[in-house]
């Protein structure tokens, strides 16, 4: 067997470019492997990563949106009209991290996991309780 580890790249983009990038990935025949958010405690940043993978040569491209603490409410257009199954990941990111993702095709309205605590992964903003 020939082991092909494949590329593993991180591509930083602006919040508005996500749909364009997702279309580009889709036209290349890639599949959305996962999407996740991360809260960086030290830098106080919210990061959203969408990973696209190629099933033939195992390449992986991670599209990364980085939001500073004061901008973490920035509206992000959902890519669930391009990749329908992205809805589950986007609901998860919104419920756990408070990412402001708009127009998800299968919208659970922050009730995917139905937890009591709001956005447990991200510290509350000042003025909020």
């Amino acid at each position, binding site marked *: *067997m020939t*082991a*092909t*580890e*494949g590329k*593993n790249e*991180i591509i930083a983009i602006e919040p508005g470019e996500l749909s364009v990038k997702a279309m580009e990935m889709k036209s290349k025949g890639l*599949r*959305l*492997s*996962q999407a*996740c958010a*991360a*809260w*960086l*405690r*030290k830098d106080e940043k919210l*990061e959203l*990563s969408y*990973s696209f*993978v190629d*099933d*033939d040569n*195992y390449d*992986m491209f*991670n599209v990364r949106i980085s939001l500073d603490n004061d901008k973490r409410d920035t509206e992000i257009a959902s890519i669930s009209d391009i*990749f*329908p*199954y992205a809805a*589950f*990941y986007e609901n998860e990111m919104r419920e756990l991290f408070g990412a402001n993702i708009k127009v998800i095709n299968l919208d*659970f309205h922050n*009730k*995917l*996991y*139905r*937890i009591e605590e709001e956005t*447990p*992964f991200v510290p509350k903003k000042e003025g909020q309780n």
Partner: protein
Amino acid sequence: MGKRSVIPYGPQHPVLPEPIHLDLVLEDEKIVDVLPSIGFIHRGLEKLTEKRDFNQMVYVTERVCGICSFGHGYGYCDTVEHIMNIEVPDRAKFLRTIWFELSRLHSHLLWAGLMADAFGFENLFYQCWRVREKVLDVIELTTGGRVIFSVNKVGGVLKDITPDMQKAILEMLDYVEKETKVLEKTFMNDYTVESRMKGVGVLTKEQAHALGCAGPFARASGIATDMRMRGYAAYGELDMEPIISNDGDCYGRCEVRIGEIYQSIDLIRQALDKLPEGELAAVVKGNPDGEYFMRIEQPRGEADYYIRGNGTPNLDRMRVRTPTFANLAGLCAVLKGADYADVGILAVTIDPCISCTER
């Protein structure tokens, strides 16, 4: 058009031991729409990184799921090792591969049993689990645990497989291979079993790709993707090809998984044959600082790990994307248009692991 009704499925259901809730919209006996709702097992263990350091997290990660426990522990350790640039000794890589395949073996036999139970063949269910117990005996002999092994650590493994144990593994493999051939006859050729599986829940290759399916579920629809081909651990030095089927129905998924039982047996034999001498673990110094995306092949399919370290013992983020999470969309697709009586089979056919899904 018939009368529409909504039937709730789960969270407590005789067929599926795990809690998932599906709202099934029925038109007479046909399902026209499905809405899954999850969250019955959501624990929030990813946030434990704030309270546990990166070595303790290995034990938490192993408990993401009790069936693919070893895979989760391995995926976590491998990702941290990539961030910290740790060169794992060759022997540890091979030992990890052997345990990984042993866990795949027991998981697939478990699935075969649950599948048999789902279509009401209780005898076959018991036979599959009887064979599986032999695998668990060997796992217990080599690691000390039956379902949760806890042999991984960042930098290598904690236990060794001695020559005596290797002999026991090889004897077990011969036994399991012999017994699986008998079970395979029933699964693949029995008239009644075939009629429950053939043509049920068909997912074409295009659909499977468009829905982002992973693992044996996607391979049964003809997508030849297997993360083991990426050659992590010692897979790069072993000989294997992804097992695929072009049927795309329940029969195809059964065929793929039974094929993978033989493949696992073959891989363990190869790995034992090539097992090098050497250390069990590398020395780990410092804290992880950086990030890495890792993909490995769990018994249920492709699992993604993302770890972000910040230079302290507590990681910023530990993320596991499990195969069942990816296959949820596929499950909803195969349920649409199916008969109500087939819901149990179709739910089991993706090999659901709800505990993984919700973490």
